[in-house]
């Protein structure tokens, strides 16, 4: 019995190297598909056998670290958890838009995310340090779970790449930023009030810049409920704005 003939894949990759002169261009790579092949496996095979200079980012290769966001046939997604089996024999890969390109499929999400975190102060604001020897303050189990729902964001940048506003407004905090404010609003350990939240996102670079296209919600690899988080946040911020 012979194994079935593997599919021959043609992968068009948008190549660029800022600093070098060549203009960005698609380059086609052809490889045989293997069983259970992910884009992580495919891209590493291309780099090992066809072009050792190809740039891309993977860390966990398990869908949990958020390093490998890219446009897969034009749609933002995590490459590591995309099976080639779910794509045609010919498809395109391109870097996420909005973020600075480092080279080929590698983009600088880190600097963008750090700037967003600094601007929105995405940490617990408490006036006193915890007493580490004492029994921890209680929290309702359901509340802890609700906070984790929003806390699952992996800052992959897919929501930013899928966002109409982010393409037009360089300072728009995007679903990733709005979701973080929604997360800290829920958290009683953060002493900030809605007036503080309003100062951070009560404008067109924040929650009022959202055009409700909700591409973010559709592409989020972690399936976060960004639509609801943004809607509740907007309601809260509108109420604050009317005071």
């Amino acid at each position, binding site marked *: 019995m012979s194994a079935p003939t593997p599919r021959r894949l043609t992968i068009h990759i948008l190549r660029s190297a800022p600093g070098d002169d060549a203009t960005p261009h698609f380059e086609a790579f052809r490889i045989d598909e293997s069983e259970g092949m992910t884009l992580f496996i495919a891209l590493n095979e291309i780099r090992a056998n066809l072009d050792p200079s190809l740039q891309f980012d993977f860390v966990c290769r398990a869908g949990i670290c958020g390093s490998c966001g890219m446009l897969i046939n034009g749609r933002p997604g995590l490459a590591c*958890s995309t099976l080639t089996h779910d794509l045609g024999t010919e498809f395109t890969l391109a870097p996420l838009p909005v973020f600075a390109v480092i080279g080929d499929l590698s983009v600088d999400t880190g600097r963008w995310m750090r700037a967003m975190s600094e601007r929105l102060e995405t940490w617990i604001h*408490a006036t006193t340090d*915890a007493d580490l020897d004492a029994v921890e303050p209680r929290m309702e189990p359901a509340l802890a779970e609700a906070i*984790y729902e929003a806390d699952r964001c992996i800052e992959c940048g897919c929501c930013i790449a899928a966002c109409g506003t982010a393409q037009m407004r360089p300072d728009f905090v995007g679903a990733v930023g709005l979701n973080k404010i929604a997360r800290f609003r829920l958290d009683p350990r953060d002493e900030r009030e809605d007036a503080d939240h309003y100062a951070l996102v009560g404008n067109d670079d924040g929650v009022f810049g959202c055009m409700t296209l909700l591409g973010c919600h559709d592409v989020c690899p972690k399936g976060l409920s960004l639509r609801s988080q943004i809607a509740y946040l907007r309601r809260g911020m509108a109420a604050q704005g009317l005071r």
Partner: protein
Amino acid sequence: MRIFYTDVLVVGGGLAGLRAAVGARRRGHDVTILSLVPPKRSHSAAAQGGMQASLANTTKGAGDNEDVHFEDTVRGSDWGCDQVVARMFAHTAPKAVRELAAWGVPWNRVTAGTREVVMDGKHVTLEEPALAHGLITARDFGGTKKWRTCYVSDGTGHAMLYAVSDRAIAEGIPVHERKEAIALIHDGGRCHGAIVRDLVSGDLTAYLARATCIATGGFGRLYRSTTNAVINEGMGAAIALETGAATLANMEAVQFHPTAIFPAGILVTEGCRGDGGVLRDAAGHRFMPDYEPEKKELASRDVVSRRMEQHLRAGHGATSPFGQHLWLDITLLGTAHIDGKLREVKEICRNFLGIDPARDWIAVRPAQHYSMGGIRTDATGAARGLVGLYACGEAACWDLHGFNRLGGNSVAETVVAGMIVGEHIADLCESSDGDLTFSTALAAEFLSREEARLGALLHGGGAESPVALMTRMQTLMTDNVGIFRRGDLLQDAVTELRALSVRARNLHVGTQRRGANPELVTAYRLQRMLKLSLCVTEGALARTESRGAHFREDYPRRDDATWLQRTLATWPDPEQATPTLAYEPLDVMSMELPPGWRGYGARDAIEHPDTERRAREVAALREARPAADRHALQAALLPFLHLLPPRLRGPNARAGGDA
């Protein structure tokens, strides 16, 4: 010459490095973190199941305290750990969980009343007391007497990493991303910082620092089959080794996790078994009770992994196009539990296996998972051999884990060690030893040495493929230096690793770009990874006993008489072909818990001559002070509080009082 100065240079932006950085920053020192990737991408994020700390909030945690956690950790280590460090750790872990709670980690909480759980394949009803409602809950993990593993669903590492990373941002600590330390600057006695390569521009910069802390995680990528992220190539340990002055320890102590999905090697948490999942063979038979009737699937990781491989060898594996594997069955836990507490597992199963673990069994096989060995430090985190160099987390051999780490003790170690070592680094900076005599000549010497090494790789005109040699090394390590080890296979591996090292002096790098150049990165890391592989393999070959995760088929007994020793590896001469091995004895006479039986397999360890005497001494001390409280008794047996920063010395309160 590019020079950058900072008080404290932390190499690595995972949990250990971030927490140490926050500690030093809060003491008023300038801290700079280097990270290969944005810090929230670090491998800490992959820790799923939880973090051990003896809060004793739940019914199944009742009676837990530092003593029980300490004893579990020492037994788990097969008596290979440093018991003083295990004490410091068990004492600080509850404080770490509570600090993380204050920093925003949404720990799962106790719900008062009855709840259904699965234990040993059966549904059981537990009752949680009203007193505990809303406190941090815990799940069961392998090798522990109590349910002690605090968790956030199965995204514990993620939640911890985000909280600590955001705390570092709040403290204004800069992270220099996509930077790699490729050499430590030192004068043979003191570390002065590191030569750092920008992975985007290719530029080299000398970072000078009063204290340098390596927190780069483990070296799983020496192996083909590993749960580790692709960045876990052990470069922190490698650059320490290349100083010739710093020391690596117990590099042969490598952990293999029982449940990596097959064949991708991606981890599914021990929480699957802690929450009641079982292992099955091709026939659907639950086989672990046959081998380990008491602890079954929740024996220590090294034991479960060995039993699985043993069962595969006996011909009970399920067959797939990629080879043999076994099954992890969590269907009995039910959809609601999996959707709430094992959701990452569910996503991983869907994405990589195309299955729903609430209905289907998960194909698993053990894979490399954790490096117990690393840069040898003392209890304060100071590296042996170089003043001003520190290490913490998986990169270090602080020696909390000995020859086998308990599940839930690694993320716990990252933050606990970070809390302790960060303060000791600050102490150094505030002492006279903290003064750095600034030598531009020394920095220039190291810069030009590294420029020359990279230039030789780019323009050396070699013929060998870095990728091909890397692949061969990884295959060799998985095949010959894995779960079951044997003298002849290890000797073959040493011989071939030496040959690969010679070939790796003659590499061909086709991409001539100075900046972002993945081929060049593979080339220079390969040379260093081969050195680490030799440390692992030579250490494994020399250690003619079985202890914890180091199992020699030709020497199956634990031999305390000869091998109650820590392996030390150095590389004093860059031209030498293999590491220099030396040994550091563990002092039985100062152990709080003298060597004994771990609770698995035969009681056939070869005893250390001091064991019986120390056991009598400990028993007599306990008898002589029947009225002493447990803290006073403990202090008489093995004092450790003086090694902790003063702010971490207080007793831990528990809602139910002290057990």
